């Protein structure tokens, strides 16, 4: 028998699949544990020693969460805030990125730098002056306040991402379209936009993730359920339902689910967008 080949094969498996499995466990275990916990009957959460798998699977935690708590409201608020942010950031970042990529004007580099510099400032530095501004505008404790804040803070990175994608499209294509008599808008819409679609998807995914997850501004600008988003809702739940981990984990699963699903659909574009900038520099 060819035992050295067999040993080599086993060694290959050992050094390849064991690290891969360890890595996957590291990545997925917290999610898996949350999912299992949310499906356990409540009394099986608090046993000593810990019971890893439930004797019966139950959706009771989810039912209670949706029927007896404000969770559905938080979910709806999050959806509204994300939708508004996607709209504003989508339009503003695309036009800014087009401008940075395709139009030469004085001070372009400086403007671009300024855009990125805004990412440096900690939320805690801006959040209270913004609180007073929102109060003056009379939009404290509304979803509009969060849409404005999230749009602003997701703009620089999205613009940077999109500029990179636009820059990767040869200018000759625009020029050819313009020679054929197309207007700037037509050039953008029929030539650039389709080619930059992966970039647009990546940018909007980033905006979705940012707005869905954002906590500090949402916590500070909202006072009750009329505007609270999911992260703030989960945070208050953790204070109120301190020993109801069945409810808390059910809420966690439902909060994480849209992101995970959406993310898995488009992750290829996002990885491409994120790494392109960092590697090329």
């Amino acid at each position, binding site marked *: 028998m060819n035992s050295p080949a067999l040993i080599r094969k086993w060694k290959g498996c050992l050094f*390849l699949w064991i*690290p*891969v499995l360890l*890595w*996957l466990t*590291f*990545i997925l275990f*917290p*999610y898996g*544990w*949350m999912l299992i*916990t949310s499906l356990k009957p409540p009394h099986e959460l608090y046993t000593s*020693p*810990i019971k890893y798998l439930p004797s019966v699977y139950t959706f009771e935690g989810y039912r209670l969460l949706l029927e007896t708590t404000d969770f559905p409201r938080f979910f709806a608020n999050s959806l509204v805030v994300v939708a508004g942010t996607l709209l504003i950031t989508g339009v*503003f970042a695309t036009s*800014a990125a087009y*401008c940075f990529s395709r*139009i030469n*004007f004085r001070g372009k580099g400086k403007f671009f*730098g*300024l*855009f*990125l510099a*805004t990412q*440096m*400032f*900690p*939320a*805690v*530095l*801006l959040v*209270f*002056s913004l*609180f007073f501004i929102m109060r003056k505008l009379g939009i404290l404790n509304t979803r509009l306040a969060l849409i404005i*804040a999230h*749009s*602003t803070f997701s*703009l620089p990175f999205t*613009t940077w991402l999109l500029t990179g994608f636009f820059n990767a499209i040869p*200018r000759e294509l625009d020029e050819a379209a*313009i020679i054929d008599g197309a207007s*700037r808008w037509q050039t953008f819409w029929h030539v650039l936009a389709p080619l930059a679609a992966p970039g647009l998807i990546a940018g909007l995914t980033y905006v979705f993730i940012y707005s869905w*997850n954002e*906590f500090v501004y949402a916590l*500070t600008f909202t006072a009750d359920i009329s505007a609270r988003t999911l*992260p703030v809702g*989960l*945070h208050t739940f*953790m204070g109120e339902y301190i020993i109801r981990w069945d409810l*808390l*984990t059910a809420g*966690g699963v439902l909060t994480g689910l849209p*992101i*995970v699903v959406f*993310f898995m659909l488009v992750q290829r574009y996002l*990885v491409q967008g*994120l*790494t392109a900038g*960092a590697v090329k*520099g």
Partner: protein
Amino acid sequence: MVRPVNKKERQLPFLLLGPALLLMALIVAYPLLQALRLSLFQVSLLKPDAAQFVGMDNYRSLLKDPLFLRSVLNSVMWILGSVSLQFTVGMLGALILNKDFPGRGLVRGLSLIPWATSGVLVALMWTWMLDGNYGVLNDILVKLNIIGQYQPWLAMPTSLGGVIAANVWQGAPFFAVMLLAAIQGVPLELYEAAYIDGANKFNQFWRITVPLIMPTIMITTMLRIIWTANYMDLVLVMTGGGPGQASITLPVLAYITAYERLRVGQGTAMAVLQALMLMVALSLYLKLLQGKEEGGFII
């Protein structure tokens, strides 16, 4: 491209950038100046009109405040602990993902899930896993004989360590994917040449991979340092800075001072100092970088 430069064309940049710049001015620049002003006042979150000018008092009292110094030290530990561990775990992940195996694209996609997860959700999952009575990590660590009995990880004086663990989980994948992209950009011929010259895997990694991906390492680390320094969701939700003040970091202390103790001026003064310290640290880092590398890989 020959194009008649008319008035409309000249206005175009302002038209396209205008909305974005307006938002930036209103929501970033103005509040930034306003924050510098606020830090000179004694002002409550609830009664902004009753602000009282106190000059540099907010700053002066901070430098004498032991809690402030504590929070600075905690922040340093938080940043160094989180970023170094994220880097180490991320590098291991990148090396694993760099191998060729069926389903690699899927695994790489799954790897970014922690990064895409809300800080509050990360905090929720890890608070449950680190629970002193029913936490699964306690059970696993006891079974592996690493600890003798269950520990209340987030209620101990070392609670910051528990929060750092959660932060490593959330942040390592970002490193992994960035480093992976850089590693895949290294020309294969270099490894082949080294192999012919008799270099083993370990030497190939240290002599070829690491030097060639150094720019990515440096810039990714810098981005992570900025992000981690300002990041407070995990501490706020997992420990609230406690027990006592054991895990309070500088932005968390600033936030609690302004939001819970309602002393906005003092909290903002802390945030200003935090931003200044970060800027000094980063300019040192950039100096160091420029000394080491000739070339403009940054921006």
